[in-house]
């Protein structure tokens, strides 16, 4: 064989992994990995922009992800700059140092989910509150569907969102009881919340400061019990808490 012919034969197949590496690096595909959570093993999907999804690692989770995003999916390690913060974000129920990629939802839904991410651990807020925080107080139903389609549950804590009448309402990650498990896990008492809802209590106020709060707000929970009263509606002379911003 001529030298030129031998040189032309020096080319082999494309090594496995290059296409996947490029797909991950361009964001045309997402990576996935498994993590522990209060609800058992979960799968987290991510790309160079951040975490894009979270679901229970059971059943046809890959099909569910692919039908939602249309992007490829490969087993991978998250970007090193924030990979180590993922377990803490799942446990704490807030993204914290983990960036989130919410391109799969509309801009209004993104604002609702970012407001959801700000609900403190152990507290709950209503769809009406989320709609207001997202800049459109009338869009309560839209806020509800944003939460129902939350692509990153646990890390964006939609388990802390309750119906506007105070009842706990539905939950999208697995069984409905999972919402109770998560609220219990972080020290919110679902029985007490349901009791408040049954009695129509939507706010609690401190009579000495004249400030009213969401019932689970940390500032009202720190008040002396004898100074706290239950409210169905805001009453004249009381002002809204600046921490929990009740409607």
């Amino acid at each position, binding site marked *: 064989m001529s*030298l*030129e012919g031998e*040189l*032309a*034969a*020096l*080319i*082999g*197949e*494309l*090594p*496995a*992994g*290059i*296409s*996947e*590496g*490029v*797909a*991950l*690096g*361009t964001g*045309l595909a*997402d*990576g996935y*990995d498994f993590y522990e959570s209060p609800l058992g093993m979960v799968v987290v999907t*991510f*790309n*160079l922009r951040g975490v894009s999804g979270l679901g229970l690692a059971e059943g046809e989770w890959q099909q569910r992800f692919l039908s939602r995003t249309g992007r490829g999916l*490969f*087993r*991978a*390690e*998250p*970007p*090193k*700059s924030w990979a180590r913060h993922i377990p803490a974000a799942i446990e704490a129920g807030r993204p914290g140092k983990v960036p989130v990629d919410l391109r799969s939802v509309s801009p209004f839904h993104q604002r609702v989910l970012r407001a959801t991410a700000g609900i403190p651990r152990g507290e709950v807020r209503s769809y009406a509150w989320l709609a207001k925080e997202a800049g459109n107080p009338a869009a309560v139903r839209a806020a509800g569907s944003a939460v129902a389609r939350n692509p990153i549950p646990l890390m964006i804590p939609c388990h802390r969102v309750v119906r506007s009448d105070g009842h706990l309402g539905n939950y999208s990650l697995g069984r409905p009881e999972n919402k109770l498990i998560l609220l219990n896990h972080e020290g919110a008492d679902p029985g007490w919340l349901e009791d408040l809802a049954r009695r129509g209590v939507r706010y609690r106020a401190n009579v000495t400061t004249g400030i009213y709060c969401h019932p689970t707000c940390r500032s009202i929970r720190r008040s002396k019990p004898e100074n706290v009263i239950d409210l169905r509606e805001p009453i004249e002379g009381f002002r809204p808490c600046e921490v929990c911003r009740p409607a």
Partner: protein
Amino acid sequence: MADPTDELPKRLAADLDGIFPQVVELMGRRLYWGLRRMSGDHHTAEDLTQEALIRAYHALCGYDRDRIRELRLEPWLWTIALNLGRNHLRDRSRRPTLVELDEPRGGVEDPEMVDGAAWDRRLSALSGPQRTAVVLRHVVGLGIEEISEITGRPVGTVKTDIHRGLNRLRTIMEAEEHVARG
């Protein structure tokens, strides 16, 4: 015979995200093996191939359709790859990294009947410009003018690089035969 790569820029301009994976499939193999022969190292070639294709994608995102349609894809990709090879690879920590399930992976081995190590040794005896020109011309199969464009060296110089590179390879192989015969 129509080269399937001729139509690629046009299709890429119409649907960047949809067609880019085909660019990777069609061009990745030539990029990888060209870089592998230039560097003699699998990991270097793999990193440079991935990095070049990722950068190409991000550059294409910023180009308008007309510019993509006019693009001569393969020389353009090689220009990116060789620039990367000259500089150091940037920190890759901002990117998800694929989990390597089992090592070694299929396809990394040389083609059948090829003594890759021997060729790496022979090619490493060439000067940098000679090696680049010989690999691009005879392994990857690019034209002289394309190589001139990619390397920034005049056409006449590229021809000389290839000519001298091939002569050097012949000399080395004759010496090998001589040693083998004792």
